[in-house]
């Protein structure tokens, strides 16, 4: 009886200990998330009561040419950013993995972009890419590479490449450091054995390194995809979605709809648009990791 009471006490204490976390998660994650889903199914203008309209907001978005541009831009921004971060991050990890002297120092320097506030990064890149006074254009003109300033933030294609560049600069250290940590767990014996069999650097990377760290690669890519898909600051500060709507993405579009136009229902639907894709990605990665564990 005494044992049972102790167990009960223990269970109660367990619940009590997780209660604050559960309350916080419920209040700060679950409630806003479910509210957003509900609001996306309503005609809700700020200050007015919400009216349930089912999927009408989603239908309106699908019919909107502007939303299609925004969806395409979001895809280009996300895929472009992730692809480059993956390559640069891997290069950073491989380089650091083989650096013996000054490894910690270099690692610290390369982590800087990740710890600098995004607003500072966006403002810095905006200035670097300014048509008239930007360091990049001034340098290119000075060395005679171009005769006039390049329209980094004005040409629709270059503007997208420019915001991707800023995003990559901020995000690649996360990839690099994660990959490096994973690489350092790969047993040296595998490389030694491969060397005995005559494997070169590329074969060692392709057949040993990459398969050994693919779990980390998958998780890091997934996390970064979610964050990049919801990025706001870089685009808003550098181009405000311009020129025209050339860099307008889900987050800036949702802001324009929800805050400036006060259309919460439609804004929530726009911000929920990427949810199925993110959910699919999460399911895919989780299933992959489970399979790996088995």
């Amino acid at each position: 009886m005494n044992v049972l009471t102790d167990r009960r006490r223990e269970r109660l204490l367990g619940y009590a200990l997780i209660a604050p976390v559960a309350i916080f998660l419920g209040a700060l994650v679950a409630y806003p998330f479910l509210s957003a889903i509900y609001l996306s199914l309503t005609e809700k203008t700020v200050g007015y009561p919400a009216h349930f309209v089912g999927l009408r907001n989603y239908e309106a978005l699908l019919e909107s040419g502007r939303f299609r541009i925004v969806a395409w831009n979001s895809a280009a921004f996300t895929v472009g950013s992730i692809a480059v971060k993956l390559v640069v991050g891997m290069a950073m990890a491989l380089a650091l993995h083989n650096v013996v002297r000054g490894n910690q120092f270099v690692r610290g320097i390369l982590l800087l972009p990740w710890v600098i506030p995004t607003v500072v990064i966006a403002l810095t890149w905006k200035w670097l890419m300014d048509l008239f006074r930007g360091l990049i254009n001034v340098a290119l003109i000075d060395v005679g590479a171009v005769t006039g300033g390049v329209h980094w933030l004005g040409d629709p294609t270059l503007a997208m490449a420019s915001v991707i560049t800023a995003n990559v600069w901020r995000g690649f250290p996360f990839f690099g450091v994660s990959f490096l940590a994973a690489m350092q767990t790969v047993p040296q014996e595998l490389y030694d054995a491969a060397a005995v069999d005559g494997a070169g650097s590329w074969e060692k990377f392709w057949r040993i390194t990459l398969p050994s760290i693919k779990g980390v690669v998958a998780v890091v890519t997934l996390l970064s995809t979610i964050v990049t898909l919801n990025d706001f600051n870089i685009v808003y500060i550098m181009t405000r979605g311009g020129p025209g709507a050339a860099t307008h993405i889900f987050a800036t579009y949702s802001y324009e709809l929800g805050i400036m136009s006060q259309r919460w229902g439609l804004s929530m639907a726009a911000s929920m648009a990427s949810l199925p894709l993110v959910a699919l990605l999460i399911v895919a990665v989780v299933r992959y990791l489970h399979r790996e564990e088995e």
Partner: protein
Amino acid sequence: MGTLAKKLAVLVALTAVLVPLPRPPAAAGKLSLWRLKTYIPPADKILDANAQECAKKAGLELAIQTYTFDDMWTKFTAAIESKTLPDIAELDAVGPARLANLGRLADVSDVVAAATKELGAILPNADGAVKFGGKYNAVPHYAIPLVLFYRPDILTKVGAEPPDTWEDIQKVSEKVKKAGVQEYPNGFPWNRTGDGYDPAMSLLWSYGAAWVDKSGKFTGIPKAAGVEALRVVTRAYLADKTSAFDYLSWSGATNNEAFMAGKITFTPNGPSILYQEESTQHPLLKDTAIKVMPKGPAGRNLALTFVMNWAVPTDGKSQKEAKALIGCVMARENFVKYMQGSFRQMVPLFAKPLDDPYWNTPTGKIVVETVKQGHPVGWPGPTTPAAAEVVSGNVLTDMITRVIVDKVTPEAAIDEANKRMKEIYDRLPVK
């Protein structure tokens, strides 16, 4: 069990401390005031001092919070939904229409009546942004008018007169470019800031391309006039190449920077460039001039987008005290002190202070003239929530950039804009 109870009590107490509770409305004797943080800190200081002095005289405790043009609607959106608007709110040009339509603003006709006794009549063109259904829902505070900045030295160099029409701006820009003085002299940014949508309204209205009638009801942009207006300004980007596409991505400050860096000949802006140049003794100060924004075939119909108005939200429990405080801040002595400390940026919307000798300078006369000729958002009707959304949703500037960036024809861009506006006016019908 006693220990467990203690642990639970500690957890509950911690949760209670950490979980934020809704802010209770200000108690009697305390007032909250939200105002715009302007780019003239000395003027902001005078305003705060005036307001605090007024509060002190009335035995009130005044808490002032600020916002910028960029985060104003983020702050107000949250407050509207949580019913925590302040006792006194300084609202932008579209704020009174939006909040009055929600029934969230007190009638301040009595405050306006008292202010007109001291400051003279409200300018007739300012009424449309603050007077709804025959009563005032806000008291006009000041306007920051957009004027045309230009470089007289460059115009002299190319033998051109200061432009007076939209066509003139294009022609002079071409001359400047051809003379090799500047590559992209025409700094009109059709972007997602006030420097984009304010001139967009002035442009359309001066070509007779308003989208509403005098009652504020939607009529649509007339195709012929709209096309003419679009052709004249998109030419700078597409044919003459006197504007760079980069201008379409500018923030509200980038055109100031480009002008002060000597890279553009024209740009629409509030008088802030003058303030910056004067306060830094900028070398271009002597080569900077302003002019009233251009006219078109239908006349000079300027927009007044940067207008700030005092309002008393009905969320507050101290509306009487709030009104008294606004009345005190708008009292002649206080208002003139503020106006004269504003480096000629904050232009009154009442008749008497506009006649103050303070404005009797070459630039002062131009900003006063601009305010006198300005029209509220949604002209020729009053400002309505639908007109507010047309502007804040960037419908007008999107229409222009569709032609420039996406190479849509002006006719198709107008059709698209009219479709978007019709949806807005159907959803937010004009009462």
